Structures are given as C-alpha cells and as structure tokens.
C-alpha cells in the first residue's frame, strides 16, 4: 500500500497539493456556516433575530432547537457530494 501511494504521490505532487487546498477551503466555508447557524443564530445573534416571529417564539429559538440540526445535515451531505466530485476531478477517487 505504501509503495503504491508513494509513487502516485510523487507523480501527482502538484495536483495532490491542489486537491488538499481545495478540500481545506470547502471545510473552512462549511465550518463558518456551521458556527454561524449554531453559535450565531442559535445563541449569540438571537437578540438580533428576535423580531422575526416563528410559531409563538422567535427565529433564534427555532435555530437552537431545529434549524441548526437541519443545517448540520445539509452541510454533511453537501460536503460528501462535493468531495466525491473533487476526488474525481483530481483523479484521487477509489476505483
């Protein structure tokens, strides 16, 4: 296993680096959304959203109890889809 990876790593050194930085970029963007929807909308920014009524309470409460979970789900599926596509673009997917 080590031999195989070493060879392909040397051959595609540059594209591997490009693949990794693209991955890190996708992760960073996803984590910013992750933080804004949970710590942001759910907790710290809740007073700011208090004007938006949702079913007897406000949007911040909804984010804290439901919205954040739905966003987390969307993020993980987006990441899986995007990365599996990226794997193919850089030719590092599994056969």
């Amino acid at each position, binding site marked *: *296993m*080590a031999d*195989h*990876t*070493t060879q*392909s*790593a040397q051959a595609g050194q540059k594209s*591997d680096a490009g*693949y*990794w930085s693209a*991955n*890190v970029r996708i*992760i960073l963007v*996803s*984590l910013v959304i*992750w933080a804004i929807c*949970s*710590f942001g909308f*759910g*907790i*710290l920014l*809740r007073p700011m959203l208090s004007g938006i009524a*949702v*079913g*007897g*309470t*406000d949007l911040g*409460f*909804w984010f*804290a*109890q*439901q919205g*954040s*979970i*739905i966003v*987390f*789900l969307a*993020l*993980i*599926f987006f*990441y*899986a889809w995007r*990365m*599996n596509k990226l*794997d193919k673009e850089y*030719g*590092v*997917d*599994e*056969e």
Partner: protein
Amino acid sequence: MDQFTINLLFVGASFALYIGIAIWARAGSTSEFYAAGRGVHPVTNGMATAADWMSAASFISMAGLIAFVGYDNSTFLMGWTGGYVLLALLLAPYLRKFGKFTVSEFIGDRFYSPTARLVAVICLIVASVTYVIGQMTGVGVAFGRFLEVSNTTGLLIGAVVVFAYAVFGGMKGVTYTQVAQYCVLILAYTIPAIFISLQLTGNPIPALGLFGDHSASGEPLLSKLDQIVRELGFGEYTAHNGDTFNMVLFTLSLMIGTAGLPHVIMRFFTVPKVSDARWSAGWALVFIALLYLTAPAVGAMARLNITEQFWPNGASGEPVSLETIESDPAYDWMQTWQQTGLLGWEDKNGDGRIAYFNDGNADAKAAMEAAGWGSANELTNFNRDILVLANPEIANLPGWVIGLVAAGGLAAALSTAAGLLLAISSAVSHDLLKGQLTPDMSEKSELLSARIAMAVAIAVATYLGLNPPGFAAQTVALAFGLAAASIFPALMMGIFTKVNNKGAVAGMVSGLVVTLIYIFLHKGWFFIPDTNSFTDADPLLGTIKSTSFGAVGAAINFAVAFTVSKMSAPIPREIEELVESVRIPRGAGAAQDH
C-alpha cells in the same frame, strides 16, 4: 392481556431478535471482530452509529432535560448533533483511509510514539468505562420499571444478552444488532410523540407541532406554554436565563467531545470506502435527527400536558382535587408512577387539592397564598424522566405502546453499552496486548484475546453497574472532557498539521491534566464529595462551568502541541508520507488486508 405480559412480550421478542442476529453474524477474523470486515453499507452504518450514539440518556432523559429548563438546554440538541459535522469533515474519511482498527493505533502510528498511543488508550478506556456505567444502570432501571424484576436481575439479564452478541459477533454482531435496536428505539420514541402531537396540536409531525398552534386554545403552543409556566413562577420556556458565554462554551465542548468519542469514531472503520465514510456520517445524523428533532417537541408538549392536568382551568383556575386524582381514569398514570418513586404529592394545607407551582418564586407564592392554595408546592417529587416514560400513559395510549417504550429504552441502553464495550476490548487486545506486550501474537490468538477482553469488560461493567461509584452522575462531564481535551485535538492535528511526536504527547497530556484538575476542583478530587474548592454555581474562571471546560482543554492541547512541535525536530520523511496518504482517498481498499 395485562400490561406486564405485554411488556414482557415486547422485550422478550426484541431480545430474541438480538440473539438471532448474534448467531447469524459471528465474527471469524480480527477484521470482522474489530471492523465488521469493512463491508458495512454506509446507510446501515449510519443507522448503527445512531443507535451506538443515542444512549439511555438521549432516549429517557433528554426530553425532560429540555422540558424543565427550556431554551437554555438547547445546548444538548446543538452539541450532540453539531459534533457530527466535525466528525464528517475533519476525522471520519481520513481515519477510514488510514485503515487500522483503533483510534489509539492511528495516534501511535502517526506520532511514531508508543507513549502517545498509551496516553490515547488510557483516555479511551477511562472515557468509555465511565460512560458504560450509566448505560448498565440504565438497563437495570428500565427492567426494574417495566418488568417488575429487581434492578440486579434486570442488569444481569441485559449483560447476558450483550455477552451473546458482542463476544461472539464483535463489531459484526454489534453492527447488525444496533441496526435492529435503532428500529426498535426510534419507533418507541416517535409513536407516542406523534399521538401527543396530534392530541395537542392536530399535527402528526411533532417537530412541526412544536411551532404550531395549540388546538384547545388556538394560541401558538409555545406562547401557551410560556404563559402557564410564567404564571406558576417558573422561568419562561423560550427565554434565555443562563449565562451566554458558558452556553456557547458548553455547546462547543459537547460538539468536540462528540467528535472525539472513540466508540463513535470506530464505527466509520467499518465502511468499504472513504467516500462511504463521508456519506455514512450524513446518514448517521439523519437517523439521529429523527429523534433529536422529536425530543424538544416531546419535552414542550409533555410539560404543557402535565401542567394542564394539574391546572385543568389554567393557572388562574383551581388546582386539581385529590378526589379527581383518585377517581378520574385520566389520572391513573399518577398512581402508577407514584409507586416507582418518580412522582410524589402531598396535600400540605389540607384543602383537598394539589397545587403545583414554583414556591421559590416570591410573586407566584404570594399569588397562590392570596388565591387560597397555600404557600408550598404540593407536587413534592417530579422526576424529569417521567416525561418520556409516562408519556404513553398520560396521553392514554394503548398498552402495546407502553411495551414498545420499554423495549426502546432497553435498546438505547444496550446498543450504546455494546459499542463502548467494543471500544474498550479492542483497545485492550489490539493496542495493549498486540501493540505493546506481545506483538508477535497470531491472528487466531488475537481474536481469542479480543473475545476474552470483551467478556472481562462486560463483567467489569456489570459489576460497576450493580455498584455504581458515587460519582456516576458526574461522569458524562468526564467522558466528554477527556474526549474533547485529548483525543479530538490529537486526531485533528495528526491529519491537518505536521505536528511531531513530542508536540502531540505534550499537547494531549497538558489538555488532559488541566481539564481533569478543573473538573476535580469543582466536583471533588476523584469525585470524593466535599473535596472541591469551587462549585459550578460559582466557578474558578469567570462563568465557565466544569462541564464546559472540554473546549478550553482542547485549546490548551492545540497551543501546547504547536509550541513544543516548533521547538523540536520535524517529523521524519515516512510520517510525512503517511500524512499525505491519509489525505488522499485513493488506495483505501488495499488497507483492508491489515
């Protein structure tokens, strides 16, 4: 058929199913024992992960935790699901690519250090053992309540069932029983929730009903709940009453801790490919979300339902009379649950009525006195677990739903216990025996030692479940603290940075020690009562409670690791190649032969 027979039937049938799976899914090799042969479909693994993750606490206690505190306890909802984003983006795919059997093995190989591996094994075992105690007591309690056997007998029956599928089946047996257990627990959780949501809001989906209108009054459910609890002197349900900084930190600690718990991470070693590990984390969260989106609805609705039973005409009307409690069938559940010691009431002022309110609130107390209902709360014992356990009876659901809830509670406790026991036994047989003491052990004897380690782990867990140490209730903070402060940062740095062996060990040890000291300072040294210097009500640092300290411990771990690593030799060439290979999905299949 009486309720006892129905409960027995449901629990018996579910146990027969688990044993049947155990016979079908026996492990024949170490790869099957540790990682189910890496042939588990991502959706199947997602379902197994959901059962692995959702413990007796999620099933029985979480709705109550939210119901009695309201908005401020949303931390559990966000924390215990948000960790999966970290797991999916930062750990699971790379650890699957690495293709070994335990979390500590990755730390040992990546940081080319037996010491690092040993520190990771110790954290893993301490976190898992403390966690498993709660599951075992949960099994005993569920048996005791639903099947009229003693806690001890219940615990022993549970241990025998886990023994059957975990010792023989290993990860393979555990995976497929967890799938069955997930189905049992999610049905048991959602069916009563759908009924109560229909009764209160007319909406069959509890998560939508929570933000819908209360059918009886036409007002939004949450305003109705806010209003009645406010009138009774409790904090408003949707209001933010606690400290904001601690709330953020606690949520973050739960997230990091979730992503660092070994029994969850190792489930992702069982899927065939790196891309499967990515999908599988998403499926795990889908199955978890089915319960986590329902739980806050169950909490709010059950609280409104119960409060209205005590105040049939609202807080400005009359409290329920003793005569009604004794004669009205709608109050039968109170008699049933009084016997379990989870509910208690006393007519303190002798007016023949039970007034339920917060007598710690001066305004509510004055209002109750003025109305003539006395100055003391007469619902003397109101255990929050009742919200889920008694929900079917309060909503007057048929007997089979109660039987299902019994089987569901047991499924939640057993599935998590089995996952934890697997993490412990593979750490002992693979990391300690094979990794450190007898490296030349054959595959066959490693498989045998894994089974023996599992049997011993079950025996120890059963003993601790029967004789829980006084600190059992505090241990969740400990497990999450350890996972957050030591395991998660080490794994993340192993994948995303070139931190070296010295940095990793120094980081893990300092994160661990500082977190432990902070927990001990607040909860007592080694949890011995009265040896604490601070309390969580008035913590050492600002408003940071000891339960929220895991995130701080993680930050210390990162900072120390980077500093020490900068000052010492860079990682060798072959480790750099290991990091490169872990980052690239191609070639994961080859690792299956290990």
